[in-house]
């Protein structure tokens, strides 16, 4: 019973922790722009993150190796360094976006100055990273992020045409501007498969000392947790499609996301939406700061791990402090965090193959994995999604240019 309870708690944390600011921004924006037409792209992205999270969790449980251990070994120092640099760049941008998102959510709750709240956000994150145990971080922010399920209620209450919603799950080329549509496809897949999630997931598995006995937990967390987490993405898009598209309202502000829950559900909807955004984005910021520190420590072979305490892994600790400082420097310039979010998602797409290829290679290596190496099913999905990320990586920059950075 205790084991099942543990799995259930892990799944709940995975649901609440799935959504980050990239998911929120892209799903709401896609709903406001194309209605439900892009729901299928979320399915593709969630399938991708399930495939590779399960794979890297399995690698971590069996070989005790996290992603950047594999990257360094499989890509070699030069290509590995390129992978590390691109991953870190995307991590810093993502972290900047998350910090800005936290400050915006706090501002919508408190009415205080955005700049002051950026400082508060960074200090709060620093304290949590320094003081809170790993398991607590994962669960507190994951559970509170579940407040985003308010968008499921909002979507139902807004009464969308469920037939149109169902049609959105069928891949299509879209009925509008193909370039803008393609840009959103890439963005939605990128937001779901953003690399820090697998860096954090695999390193977290090592932190929690998973063994072969935890392979069931890994499967449950990745498959059930991410699938249910993907539901939040669906409901964000459906709500925006039902409310904002008919009104002709853009989705350029974080407050618009909260308005989507407020309109059908009143104050309770607004409060839950803002709390959900705050915790989901804070949790993602913590994951991203750790993911950046994990990556660099694993690549250079430093001591790493939250369980070691700051003094036990000083370079790892400095790494996440530097990540926080860089993220802070981006948002304190006054750059729009929503803009940074979208840039970080699009550029993370370019880094995706460098993250996922080494995972696929190691997961197939029987020298490490023994009988737990990829089977046919895992390889079929793994190769399919590698082709998907290669295609999206190739398309991301051209679409960025051709769509004039999303302006069409």
């Amino acid at each position, binding site marked *: 019973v205790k084991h099942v309870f543990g799995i259930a708690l892990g799944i709940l944390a995975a649901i609440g922790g799935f959504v980050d600011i990239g998911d929120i921004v892209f799903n709401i924006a896609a709903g406001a*722009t194309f209605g439900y037409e892009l729901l299928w792209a979320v399915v593709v992205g969630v399938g991708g993150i399930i495939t590779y999270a399960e794979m890297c969790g399995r690698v971590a449980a069996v070989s005790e190796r996290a992603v950047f251990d594999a990257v360094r070994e499989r890509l070699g120092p030069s290509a590995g360094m390129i992978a590390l640099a691109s991953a870190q760049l995307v991590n810093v941008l993502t972290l900047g976006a998350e910090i800005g998102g936290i400050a915006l959510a706090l501002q919508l709750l408190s009415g205080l100055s955005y700049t002051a709240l950026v400082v508060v956000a960074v200090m709060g994150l620093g304290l949590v990273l320094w003081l809170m145990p790993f398991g607590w971080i994962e669960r507190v922010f994951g559970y509170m992020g579940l407040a985003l399920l308010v968008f499921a209620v909002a979507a139902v209450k807004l009464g969308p045409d469920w037939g149109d919603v169902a049609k959105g799950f069928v891949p299509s080329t879209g009925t*509008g501007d193909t370039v803008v549509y393609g840009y959103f496809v890439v963005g939605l897949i990128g937001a779901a498969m953003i690399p820090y999630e697998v860096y954090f997931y695999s390193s977290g598995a090592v932190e929690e000392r998973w063994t072969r006995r935890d392979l069931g937990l890994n499967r449950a967390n990745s498959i059930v947790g991410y699938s249910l987490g993907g539901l939040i993405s669906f409901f964000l898009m459906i709500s925006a499609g039902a409310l904002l598209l008919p*009104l002709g309202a853009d989705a350029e502000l974080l407050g618009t996301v909260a308005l989507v829950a407020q309109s059908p559900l009143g104050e309770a909807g607004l409060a839950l939406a803002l709390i959900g955004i705050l915790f989901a984005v804070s949790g993602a910021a913590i994951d991203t700061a750790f993911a950046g520190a994990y990556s660099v420590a694993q690549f250079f072979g430093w001591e790493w791990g939250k369980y070691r305490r700051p003094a036990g892994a000083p370079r790892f600790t400095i790494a996440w402090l530097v990540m926080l400082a860089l993220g802070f420097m981006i948002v304190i310039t006054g750059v729009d965090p929503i*803009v940074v979010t979208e840039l970080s998602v699009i550029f993370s797409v370019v880094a995706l193959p460098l993250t996922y290829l080494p995972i696929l290679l190691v997961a197939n290596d029987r020298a490490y994995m023994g009988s737990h190496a990829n089977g046919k099913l895992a390889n079929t999905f793994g190769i399919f999604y590698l082709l998907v990320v290669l295609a999206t990586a190739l398309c991301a920059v051209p679409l960025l240019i051709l769509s*004039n*950075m*999303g302006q069409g």
Partner: protein
Amino acid sequence: MPLVSLGAKEPTRSDTSDRREPHITIQKYATSVTESDNKRLARVQLHRHASTLHHARERLRPFRAGQPVGVHGRVALLTAVVIAGAGCGVPGSVAEQADEIASVAAEGELLAHDAAEGHTFRVFTRVHAEALEKRLTRLRPKVADKRVSMLLARVGNALNELAGAPGNSDLAARLERELASAAEEAEALAR
């Protein structure tokens, strides 16, 4: 920017006239029901019958840079961030500017409606109304057309008033009507 046809069908002239009707109907409807939730939802349902074409135009401008950005490596990326953050992608044509105003006004109308019903927090109404007004501020220096300029001033003033007295439900109700009317006019100008 090319228009995006969301419903696979472009609106006819009659579609565009239908587009205006919901706003009028909403006002009538709003006074005829007592249950506020139903009213809001009915309002949304009525809006849903509106034409879809104009909604697609530049609905989302995730990046506000005004020109394509070179994307070779980190330098270009950082440049893109700076350019985008500087808000250089302000709509240039009258139609685009009117469309931007229509979008802000439509969202402001929704915000004012919830404020009028008392189904929101004052802080949220204030902060979000200010953020919407800031979107117009970005547009202001680029506006040359007198009609756009007047609309911009109307919507900006309404949002400022809403931000200044977020707890005043009577005022919010008046501003809702004002913003709805401005949204209609902006939409007409955008076409």
